[in-house]
């Protein structure tokens, strides 16, 4: 079966003023459909940048990235928009909730862009319950703790049933109990629905929830020793 994500010799250079930052220096990897992968590596090794590329949030400098059969460098702007809407759910390292909307509003606007409206689906309500945020839905992000915001961001990323979930440190701000709940949820989604999940984490225990661990260093994938 064709992998859902295929990355070949991916390079990404950020231009910051006069300086060039080589964030990715030739990354190659494949993720088969339905796999749960952890990505680990020191700070600055390019993990988030890789996610941004796969999520079609930023352009690449060279190389090839194929997501669900589509070569990203060949996509038009509107095709990239459609990919963001329908194929990937993104949990940002810094949550990135819209401050003017409530938690529920944040979820609903993602759903709106995904092309759905009406009452939330039953199994999504179950996800909200598992995340433990059903009673916090009518609060604005400002009134939520970091951990709560993080779980809202996870719910928002899942609301459109994306083919790929990209979760950038989804347990970074959670206590061990909530961390455990989120990780179990992810594993459950992976087992029950064959949800493809890529998760960045610094925590070895969290990484161990995944089927496979990919290690990054200095903008490259290094095979685990």
């Amino acid at each position, binding site marked *: 079966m064709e992998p859902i994500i295929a990355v070949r010799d991916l390079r990404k250079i950020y231009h910051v003023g006069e300086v060039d930052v080589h964030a990715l220096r030739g990354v190659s990897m494949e993720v088969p459909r339905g796999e749960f992968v952890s990505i680990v590596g020191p700070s600055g090794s390019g993990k988030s940048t890789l996610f941004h590329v796969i999520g079609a949030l930023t352009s690449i400098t060279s190389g090839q990235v194929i997501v669900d059969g589509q070569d990203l460098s060949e996509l038009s702007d509107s095709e990239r928009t459609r990919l963001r809407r329908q194929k990937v759910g993104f949990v*940002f390292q810094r949550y990135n909730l819209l401050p003017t909307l409530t938690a529920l509003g944040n979820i609903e606007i993602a759903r709106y862009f995904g092309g759905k409206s009406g009452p939330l689906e039953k199994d999504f309500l179950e996800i909200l319950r598992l995340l433990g945020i059903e009673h916090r839905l009518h609060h604005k992000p400002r009134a939520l703790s970091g951990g709560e915001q993080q779980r809202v961001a996870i719910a928002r990323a899942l609301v459109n049933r994306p083919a790929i979930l990209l979760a950038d440190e989804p347990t970074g701000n959670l206590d061990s109990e909530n961390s455990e709940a989120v990780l179990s949820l992810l594993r459950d989604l992976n087992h029950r629905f064959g949800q493809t999940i890529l998760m960045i984490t610094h925590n070895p225990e969290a990484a161990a929830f995944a089927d496979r661990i990919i290690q990054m260093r200095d903008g490259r994938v290094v095979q685990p020793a």
Partner: protein
Amino acid sequence: MINRLVIENLKHRRLRTVLSALSIGFQVTMILAVAGLSRGMLEDSRNRAKGVGADIWIKPPGASAISLTGASMPQSVLRYFREVPHVKLATGTAVQPIGGISTITGIDYGEFVAMSGPFRFLDGGPFQSDDDVIVDQYYAEQQKLKAGDTVTILNHQWRVCGVVEPGKLARLFVRLHRLQELTNSEGKLNQAFLKLDDPARAQEVIRYLKSQPELTGYSIYSIEEFLSMFSMSNVPGLQAFIYVIIGLSLIIGFLVVGLTMYTTVLERTREIGILKALGASPLDIVGILVRETVVLAVAGWITGILLSLGAHWAINTQVRANLQSEIVPDWWPIALAVSLIASLLGALYPGLRAARQDAIEALSYE
């Protein structure tokens, strides 16, 4: 959903929203006040002209139709008019500016009342001496005058003998010969009025008068023609003035909304990035900003209408003798169009900028 986001965004920056709407409101008020004043003052002039009760209105050579002063005609011409077939009554007035846009009018009381019907006195009564002045209610209210008070006009002390209902040619009346003496224009009139035995014959009489060599250069109007001249397009410069006001409103609205939207886009760079990451297209982003702009413009428009109603009330109660204003609902759509156009133009550049931003660049914005 998008509408909810728009409303929440506007509520989030409440003060800025209110200030932007207010400044659009002031431009709308400016347009409506100018239109309302123009129309109100023209309407008031028309009513007062109508109140004379004449069928034909005659101005001497060199006089402009609407301004009441300047050129003059000899008083003896009235005798000539009275000989013209079908003319029942003829009278004339002298008009003197007394500062600002106010004027004082000299009348022959008997002739004037015969033509326009009796004055309706709210206080006092007709002239008793040559130094009496009759004022209308608006002037009396504005100047806080009542019968028996003295006023100084044209360096002369007058006694207010009566206060009358407004709507008869002028606001201040004195005896004709007294005004002529004071202004060194004995035997001269600024305008003459004719009343016919049958108003339907007005055109016939006008044709006759115009064919008389003695009256070459005189302007002769039927009352309908004369009244029709009190329209916005007939007052020199008024149309242009209104265009200037509209133009200024457009520019100010453009700048205010442009600035508001520009700061909005800058400060919301991150939120715009999030929306894009959630799958918003550039068009969606522009759509959100356009809706916010339209809400601002409409809120400003409503504010402007309310303010203009306030201005209308203030003008008509405080300075009724000098300024009259009317409510001009037919200008409301024009004002709405002006505020919408100005706001949308203002939002154009910030909107395009926001739409083009790279999502991740936006997200790493602090």
